[in-house]
Structures are given as C-alpha cells and as structure tokens.
C-alpha cells in the first residue's frame, strides 16, 4: 500500500479498498482543503464517499461524479487523478485557485461501490447496482435510468434483466437517492458533471424529451469550448449536443434531473474511445484520459465561476 497520495499509482486500476484508502490519505494530507462526506450507503452497506474541496463556508458548489456504471474503470481512475490534481493545483493554478476561493467542489469517485467491488471480485462486465429485483433472478438497476426525470418513459427498460433496467420506481437505488438528497439539501450547486465511458461525447439535457432545454444555446457553446480544450492535448475528438440528439432517447437520466432542479451547467461525459477496447481501456490510457478530460472540466468550472446565476 502506498504511504501517501504521491506514492499512489495513478496509472493503474485499483480496488475499492485501495481507492477508499486513497481518499482517506488525501483528506489526511490536506485537512484545510479536503474533507470526506458520507452521503449514504449502497445497497450492500458500503459508504458513499464524497470528497469535498473547500476553502470556506456556505459556498456554491460544483459536483463531479465518476463511474456510476461500475465496469467503466477508467472513469473511477480518472476521478482519483482529478482529486490529486485539485490539491496539487490549488494555490498554483490561478484559474482553479480562483474557483476554489469562491466555490466548493464535490467529487464522488466511486458512485456505485457495490457494482465496482463486484467487477473486481465476480464479474468484470457488471454495470448496474447490486440490489435484487423481486420475482427475478436478475440483479441490479441501471442507475442512470433511475432518476426522477421522465422516469419510466422511452429509452429505459422495464425488464429487470436488461442492462438499462430503470428500477421499480424513481430513486429506488440508494446510490441515486443519496445524491438526490444531497443535491436538495445543499441547494446551491451550480454545475453537475456526471462522467461515464466510452465513445467520446459531451452531452447536456435533455435525454427524455426532444424539447430543447431553455439554456441550450449557452450549454452548446460551452460544450464546444470544453471539447476544443480537451482536444488541444492529444487531439481526441469529441462530439457534443443534447443526449437525445447525440445518442438516443434515454429517460430517467442523471443530468436531466439535475437540470430540472435548477442546476444550469449539467453535463455528462463519455470518455475516451480508442476503437479497440470499449470501456475496458488498458491502464496506460488512464492518465491521458484524465489529463484531457480535466481540461474540459476546467472549461466548465471556469464558465460556471464566471457566470453566476
């Protein structure tokens, strides 16, 4: 085990325990900047850990989560890299420092810990939560179809054995409900970025309806800026747009709900796609993926900082 976060191998995949140890080390090393919040428990009783980066009280916040689909390991690995990047750059990078002097950043590195643990122990291809479905042998719900935004509509399955099973009712999954409760109780989140992999897309609401969201032109322009910044590092080309126009109709999705809660800068990423591995990217892709994604995240965070609402 590494003794500190400098000794952590960011270019390797890690188990849930290793990531949780990393979280605790990061908090211990940066007590004036980082704290850990437990926003709830997973179905199997694991803590839902969120890192809070904060330099003051009662600040507006930016939320980032990685890996709600457990098998997309490059997202959790990128989230770990982001956490270290934030503590490294605070006080050095003027843009991030300015943001953190005015806003908090919340980062949930392992959004679906039961699923993530399961991918390490039993089934590398596991994607959903691990809650049993009454009357079926198939386990789990797609947590990105379980939000109360067009829940139950087209673009999600009502069949528990489907990979896109929406669950019996909105927020049925504690992994989702815990975030919902946190967002509502916080009440002042200004940006919400949910990170998935793969296929190189940056998407904004809506997924459940073809009606454009009222901020579409601004979100579209910001997405263009973010993916341009992202591409400046390694030339990785992203597509961008609303979920329904860019991929497909999907109901019950995360950012549709957050947008409807009033969080204007709601985005979801689909990370790097080499065309060879799908979401099972080799570990040597972790750092380039995280580095380029960070540039896009910074674009979104800076815009949020510069455009208070």
């Amino acid at each position, binding site marked *: 085990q590494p003794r500190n976060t400098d000794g952590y*191998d960011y*270019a*390797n*995949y*890690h188990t849930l325990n290793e990531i949780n140890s990393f979280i605790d080390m990061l908090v211990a090393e940066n007590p004036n900047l980082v704290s850990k919040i437990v926003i709830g428990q997973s179905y199997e009783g694991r803590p839902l850990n969120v890192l809070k980066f904060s330099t003051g009280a009662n600040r507006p916040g930016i939320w980032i989560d990685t890996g709600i689909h457990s098998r997309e390991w490059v997202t959790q690995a990128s989230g770990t890299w982001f956490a270290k990047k934030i503590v490294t750059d605070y006080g050095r990078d003027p843009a991030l420092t300015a943001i953190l002097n005015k806003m908090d950043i919340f980062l949930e590195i392992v959004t679906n810990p039961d699923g993530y643990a399961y991918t390490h*122990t*039993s*089934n*590398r*291809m596991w994607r959903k939560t691990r809650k049993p479905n009454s009357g079926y042998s198939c386990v789990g719900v797609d947590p990105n179809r379980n939000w109360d935004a067009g829940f139950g509509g087209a673009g999600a399955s009502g*069949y528990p*054995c*489907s*990979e896109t099973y929406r669950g019996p009712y909105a927020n049925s999954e504690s992994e989702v409900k815990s975030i919902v409760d946190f967002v509502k109780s916080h009440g002042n989140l200004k940006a919400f970025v949910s990170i998935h992999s793969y*296929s190189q897309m940056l998407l904004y609401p809506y997924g459940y309806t073809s009606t454009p969201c009222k901020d579409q032109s601004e979100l579209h322009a910001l997405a263009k800026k973010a993916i341009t910044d992202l591409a400046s590092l390694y030339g990785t080309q992203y597509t961008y747009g609303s979920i329904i126009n860019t*991929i*497909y109709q999907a109901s019950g999705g995360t950012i549709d709900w957050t947008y409807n809660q009033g969080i204007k800068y709601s985005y979801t990423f689909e990370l790097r796609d080499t*065309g*060879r*591995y*799908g*979401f*099972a990217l*080799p*570990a040597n892709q972790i750092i380039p993926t995280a580095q380029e994604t960070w540039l896009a995240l910074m674009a979104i965070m800076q815009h949020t900082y510069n455009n208070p609402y």
Partner: protein
Amino acid sequence: RENFVGHQVLRIQPTNEEQISVLRSLAEKHDLGLDFWTEPVSVTKPVDVRIPFKVLQPIKIFLLENDIQYSIMIQDLQDLLDEEERVMKTRSA
C-alpha cells in the same frame, strides 16, 4: 468469478434504418445473453456488442444473412481481462 473465454466484442456498422431495426430486435432477445456496449441508434454510430462464445457463430451468420457489416473489436475478451489483471498485479508489486 465469471469467465469470458471466447466472448468477442463485435463492432457492427449498420448502413440503413432496416438494419438498425434488425439490431434492435436482436437486442430484445435477452435469452441470447448479448451485452450491447453501445446501442443501435443511427447509421452514424457503430454498435458494439459483447457476444458469448456459445452464440457467436449463429450471431455472425445472422449478421451476414442480413448483410450487416461488422469487425471484431475484441478477439477474446478473457485475454484482455487477463492482461488487465496481470498489469494491475505487476504494477502493484
């Protein structure tokens, strides 16, 4: 631990709406055990699907019969996962 020996991930490129419809109907057949990594939505987006070994040949024949083009993105998924695990352990060590 679940084993994925012989599973392949095919990258399928539909060329018209009819082929997308065929692929959608395939995705509805849950008993086949297909795992769609990307879903059939439009001719501009490839469809990636993990196919268990036991249905690999029938699915390939089905695609050929429907004139649907594909390439093999991952030849043997378990090989990839074994390599992933080997790298994890080596780097940890």
